[in-house]
């Protein structure tokens, strides 16, 4: 590094409404691992009724919430739909967990048959299942073949359209729908997943991948500094051996 200040901008969507499964741990982890590399991560929180400047942000994060909050968010997202799709198509880095992941798709069909509209940025849909998938998940990211660990807790079953690739192959757990053996979605720089735990702290390689992608997209080619991940690695290994 030549002392030049590097800054990344993260847009944290609906932190007050979508916050039930330790999702802020993901933002905390991105921030920590950036700062260890002298990268400043500016975090802007965006809530209901606030507009998103898609040219400003390198990374986006959206978490999961409960039904009532999810409904409020789903309605508001329709206002942000165009900008978020533009951001995604321009290769912005996007991490969407659980409810946030579902809302990137076409719709979520509730148990009473009504449809909660998503923003249709990704060709996927979700239907309410009658069995909740709850437990410690182990899967393998398809691109890197690295293991991913996390905790899932969802009754929605998500199905990807033919044009989309899943994020990972399930080794233990339910994954997207408990049927096809896959977990999450990967489209351009969008990472959608049901895993929390929080997800990023125990999967440092994924955190670093998101940061690297954001730097690359910005045209910054400084060498990527390896940082101490000893506790992260042990916690990851321990989670690999948990039971569902």
């Amino acid at each position, binding site marked *: 590094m030549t002392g030049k200040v590097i800054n990344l901008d993260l847009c944290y969507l609906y932190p007050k409404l979508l916050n039930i499964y330790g999702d802020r741990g993901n933002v905390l982890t991105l921030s920590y691992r950036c700062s260890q590399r002298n990268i400043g991560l500016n975090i802007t929180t965006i809530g209901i009724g606030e507009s998103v400047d898609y040219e400003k942000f390198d990374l986006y994060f959206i978490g999961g919430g409960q039904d009532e909050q999810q409904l409020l968010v789903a309605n508001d997202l329709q206002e942000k739909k165009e900008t978020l799709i533009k951001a995604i198509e321009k290769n912005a880095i996007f991490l969407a967990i659980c409810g946030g992941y579902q809302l990137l798709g076409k719709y979520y069909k509730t148990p009473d048959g009504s449809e909660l509209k998503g923003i249709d940025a990704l060709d996927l849909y979700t239907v309410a299942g009658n069995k909740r998938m709850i437990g410690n998940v182990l899967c393998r990211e398809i691109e890197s073949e690295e293991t991913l660990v996390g905790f899932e807790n969802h009754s929605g079953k998500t199905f990807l359209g033919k044009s989309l690739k899943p994020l990972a192959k399930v080794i233990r757990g339910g994954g997207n729908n408990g049927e096809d053996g896959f977990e999450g979605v990967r489209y351009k720089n969008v990472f959608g997943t049901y895993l929390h735990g929080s997800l990023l702290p125990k999967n440092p390689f994924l955190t670093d991948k998101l940061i690297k992608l954001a730097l690359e997209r910005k045209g910054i080619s400084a060498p990527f500094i390896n940082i101490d991940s000893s*506790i992260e690695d042990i916690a990851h290994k321990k989670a690999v051996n948990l039971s569902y």
Partner: protein
Amino acid sequence: MQNILFILSILAVKTVAFFISFLKLGQASNLPGKIALKIKKDILKQLKFNEDLKIIVITGTNGKSTTSGMLTSIFRATGKTVITNSAGANLLTGIITTLCRNSSLLGKINADFLVLEVDEATLKYITEALKVDLILVTNLFRDQLDRFGELDTTAKLIEEGIKKSKNAQIVLNADDPRVAFLKTETTQKKIYYGLSSISNDENSLSLSEWMKDPEEEDYKCSHREIQKPELNFLISDIKTDHLSTYFNLIEVSNNLQKSNFFLPMVGIFNLYNAASAIAIAKTISSPTQMQIQKAFQAYSTLFGRGEKIAVKNKTAWIYLIKNPIGTTEVLKTLSKAPNARFLIAINDNFADGRDVSWLWDARFELLSNSKKEIFVSGKRAFDMALRLKYANVKQDLIKVNENIKTALYNALNTLEDGETLYVLPTYTVLLEMQRKKLCKSVK
């Protein structure tokens, strides 16, 4: 035949409980009930209570044990007899065990009060089988989300339970919007307790803040402009230090009578527990201010919520942690205590909540200025270590040992003169500490 099975099931509880205690195999709080349930499915409905016995049920995510303990202590201070599931056994099997151990062989139970802390999902089975006189809902926090899915589900479970006790009085925490607006039946009288909004106490703002999720939209937003209900019991004039809490409780229906109380405990959660115990006691009986005050002093916290313990020749304090809000509250209080040292022990068994995500919502950042080692232990010790690291605690100050016994002794051995060790375990770590006799209570 049915009667024989009934007697047999009661006998089974008594015998199994006796042997478990005799052989020191554990607390005998669930297994006997499990066996009884196998022998006689509707055992609860068959039990016979004396006619003037009043049944009080306490549910909610936090404070069930503490409130039950305080209430029991108040009733006993007025000379009444109370049966309660004080072992923290709040599932169906635990409650059956408690009742059968306190019944005659023919299933007769004799007491003035039955005080039961009941798990949210178990509530409907209890209200269906027993004629409950009063139900308290303490609060609905993000606790064990992986058990019921989410809070809205927990609220529905409680509503189902409330529905089955048509004539019960329902005591509700007015400061928790999720509790205040639970659906009740028109036949049920509702009684609200909460902080006085007219109080100009400096603390009161932060207190009502505590009742909400810090990250959640406020009362108005998430519950669409609904007004806080009118209070029957108002908490006011709160003063706290790091050892005790002083407050007034105003009884609206009794000419706004104001009584002053001193609680030898810390934490806003304990204040709410105390207020709800007083509200119930005053609703269903007529204890004096003196009797209540005596009860608080006599009460030693059940299950380690702020309990002083002796280990070897040293003393430490235990604070049970189990969800982000309660943990943050404990950290806020203890991080201000002088010369504090910490041991945090996290398990992920069913009773702890199998998902440790909540660690990331608790404000462990309150410990980031620590210059002394912080010890971490339990099955998920490395998750906890990681949480501290990302809370900016220096990595070389984080000492990990998954074995609670070793971790506890290591922590005690490094204590310097004048330092106090605070142990923050999740539920099953605490059970393990008790089972292995690592600590004993100091009164």
